[in-house]
């Protein structure tokens, strides 16, 4: 790469940085890391709920992406490609830890037929009273209360934008299980967020 281009890292679009990095330019890759590291870490944190694990897996994702950079064809954005890598690493880690088993009362309830059926329908209004940052924080807190199995499916569907079929394939569960977990997770989130708002207004 010409020396003059080296000064353009900050302003270069991801595609250009990826192209340079594919040719072995580590400075271009470092710039990509700098740009997207928080998002990748946040995604890992959402899945694992453990700072050290999230940090470790996010770094592992960057190592993997460097090794597989030649496979990136630009079919999706670089950020999407990266989040896919980190989600896959998180899933592998969760499998290793065998945390996907029925691990809590909530999971057992779901398997028995679903407490979500008994929940009152909530009217979730995102604009009511809460600032965006505050709302993000509340959502994060509510997500921490979900079981890992429910949270995983929710993250993959709502934040990763994957279809039921794709989630089923990646998590290695049936589409029916994906649907019931997602249904439960959403209903629980609606209930938790409504509860947080009630607490706040009291």
């Amino acid at each position, binding site marked *: 790469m010409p020396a003059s281009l080296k000064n353009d890292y900050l302003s270069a679009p991801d595609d250009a940085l990826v192209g340079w990095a594919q040719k072995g330019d580590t400075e271009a890759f470092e710039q990509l*890391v700098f740009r997207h590291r*928080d998002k990748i870490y946040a995604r890992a944190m959402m899945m694992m709920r453990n700072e050290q694990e999230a940090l470790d897996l996010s770094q592992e994702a960057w190592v993997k992406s460097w090794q597989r950079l030649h496979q990136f064809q630009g079919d999706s954005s670089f950020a999407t490609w990266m989040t896919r890598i980190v989600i896959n690493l998180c899933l592998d880690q969760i499998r290793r830890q065998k945390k996907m088993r029925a691990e809590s009362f909530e999971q057992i309830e779901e398997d028995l037929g679903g407490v979500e059926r008994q929940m009152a*329908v909530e009217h979730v209004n995102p604009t009511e009273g809460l600032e965006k940052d505050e709302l993000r924080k509340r*959502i994060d807190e509510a997500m921490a209360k979900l079981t890992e199995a429910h949270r995983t499916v929710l993250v993959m569907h709502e*934040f990763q934008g994957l279809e039921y079929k794709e989630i089923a394939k990646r998590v290695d569960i049936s589409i029916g299980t994906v649907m019931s977990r997602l249904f439960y997770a959403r209903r629980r989130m609606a209930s938790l967020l409504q509860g947080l708002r009630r607490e706040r207004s009291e």
Partner: protein
Amino acid sequence: MKANFMSDRQLLEIMAYSDGELDAPRRHAVEKLIAEDPSAAALHQELTACANLLRAHEPLGTVPETREFYWSQIQRRIAAEEHAATRAKAPKAPALGWLRWLAPAIGVAALALVVTYQQRPGPTILAVGEASSMTFTSEADGVTISWIN
């Protein structure tokens, strides 16, 4: 409002409808259900609003390390993995590989030597200075050979 009078299938189909995951016939069936049943409509509204809320407010995070430290750790890992890959690809040194095949023979010879000495009438004592030994170790092949004179 409780959503517990609908079947499991209907509940899940309402969600699948809001996610655009239904085929045309099922989509029409759910649309009819939502139009006719206020609790189905309320559930659909809740599920859609919740999904929209989450998508619009994905929790953010900040790497709890400086840029330099975070990057240096990644660099170190990349270097370590590249080093490991290079070592794995490198062909093993063929030298002295044949010694592996000699190991059983050496063992038998050593045993025979011990038996022979034990069967001699008197003990053979090698005075210090008379005995000499030489040891050869190949870590790559996991073999140690000792010659005793």
